[in-house]
């Protein structure tokens, strides 16, 4: 009986897209386990902190304060630049940047495997996180929310082959679509001409086309390209700038107010 039910679930999930709600229900069921695991990991961090020498904590606090002051200064500069940017956009008749609000999330699991490259974060529908919301870390775009439970959400990473994002090369303004290549951790830029100006080291940022990802967030850095591909024009390979495995704290850019 259970075998038949599993086979039925599997067939329905493979042939249609109607399993979103049951998946969310199961996701909510498993979330206590994920939270306990997260608490255990946090305990480990706490023990590490308690074992640190007082001198080291003082040094760390001083460094953090210094960094905070630097960041506040940078924020002030950015506010000025942002205001100027809005004014210029108005002059050019362009669309103003979306006013997105954000929520900080912790990575609680890498659910990546043969099924896809995803991470689970500890914010969900109760935090007004919705499907399609972009997710970034300190370095750039990580991916987008593809499943939102009550208190957790799944983020499809840039490197997944089913993930695409419209980008523009910052240096030259060449536009294209970045798609994941799978397990090797790289992305590929598609849809650009063979004579486009691309160099190793170029930074790609979100172009804002389609309205899903706001303009200007760093995405990836070009590491290599092949010009003589007769099928797709130029094949450009790039390394994502974001690394959720290292940062562990992500920011969800919410499209709806909390």
């Amino acid at each position, binding site marked *: 009986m*259970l*075998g038949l*039910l*599993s*086979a*039925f*679930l*599997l067939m*329905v*999930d*493979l042939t249609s897209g109607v*399993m979103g709600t*049951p*998946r969310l229900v*199961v*996701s909510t*069921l*498993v979330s206590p*386990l*994920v939270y*306990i*695991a997260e608490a*255990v*990991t946090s305990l480990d961090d706490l023990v590490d902190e308690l074992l640190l020498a007082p001198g080291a904590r003082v040094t760390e606090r001083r460094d953090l304060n210094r960094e905070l002051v630097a960041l506040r200064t940078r924020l002030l500069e950015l506010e000025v630049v942002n205001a100027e940017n809005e004014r210029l956009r108005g002059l050019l008749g362009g669309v103003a940047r979306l006013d997105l609000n954000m929520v900080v999330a912790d*990575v*609680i*699991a*890498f*659910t*990546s*495997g*043969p*099924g*896809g*490259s*995803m*991470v*689970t974060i500890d914010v969900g529908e109760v935090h007004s996180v919705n499907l399609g919301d972009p997710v970034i870390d300190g370095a750039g775009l990580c991916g987008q929310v593809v499943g939102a439970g009550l208190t957790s959400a*799944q983020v499809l*990473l840039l*490197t997944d*082959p*089913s993930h695409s994002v419209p980008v523009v090369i910052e240096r030259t303004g060449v536009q294209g679509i970045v798609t994941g*290549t*799978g*397990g*090797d*951790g790289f992305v590929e830029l598609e849809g650009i001409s063979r004579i486009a100006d691309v160099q190793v080291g170029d930074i790609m940022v979100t172009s804002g086309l389609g309205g899903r990802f706001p303009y200007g967030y760093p995405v990836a850095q070009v590491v290599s390209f092949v010009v003589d591909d007769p099928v797709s024009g130029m094949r450009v390979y790039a390394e994502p700038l974001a*690394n*959720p*495995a290292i940062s*562990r704290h992500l920011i969800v850019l919410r499209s709806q107010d909390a």
Partner: protein
Amino acid sequence: MQQEEVASFQFAFSMIGGLFLYVLAAPLFDPSVPYGNWLRVEWIPLLLFFWGQRQPNWPPLWVPWLCGLLLDVLRGDPLGLNALCFLGMAWFISARFEWFRTLSLIEQCLALFLCLCFYALISLGVLLFAGRALGDWWFAVLPPIITAALWPLSFVLLVRIHSRALNV
């Protein structure tokens, strides 16, 4: 409490423990490393391998089924994939428990490795059917190797815990 009830409780508890260990270790799987996703222990199949031999009267099958379903969500696999595999594995091991018991510890490692390879093969087949890109699929042999290598130690520990609970 009857011995069978104790065993059933232990079984259910250990399965939840297996799932917990997966969740606990999941952040360690660095997706930026090509084979990072595959450096994991398949705790639930390992526990099924133990309990299938240990309990001739198999404890409730819905427990491995539910664990499989939860793992489907955690890994982002098609819903029902791991549930079906764990159910099949539980049934097969319990049906052949007498044969498995006659094997030496090293032979059991090999048997577990083969079971896990079969499980990996089914998973990869279903994911391929689902149209998922399986770029580094050859690393799928890593979890069976790691899990089978851990079997002797796990077996000794589980036998000790099981016997102590039953006061045998």
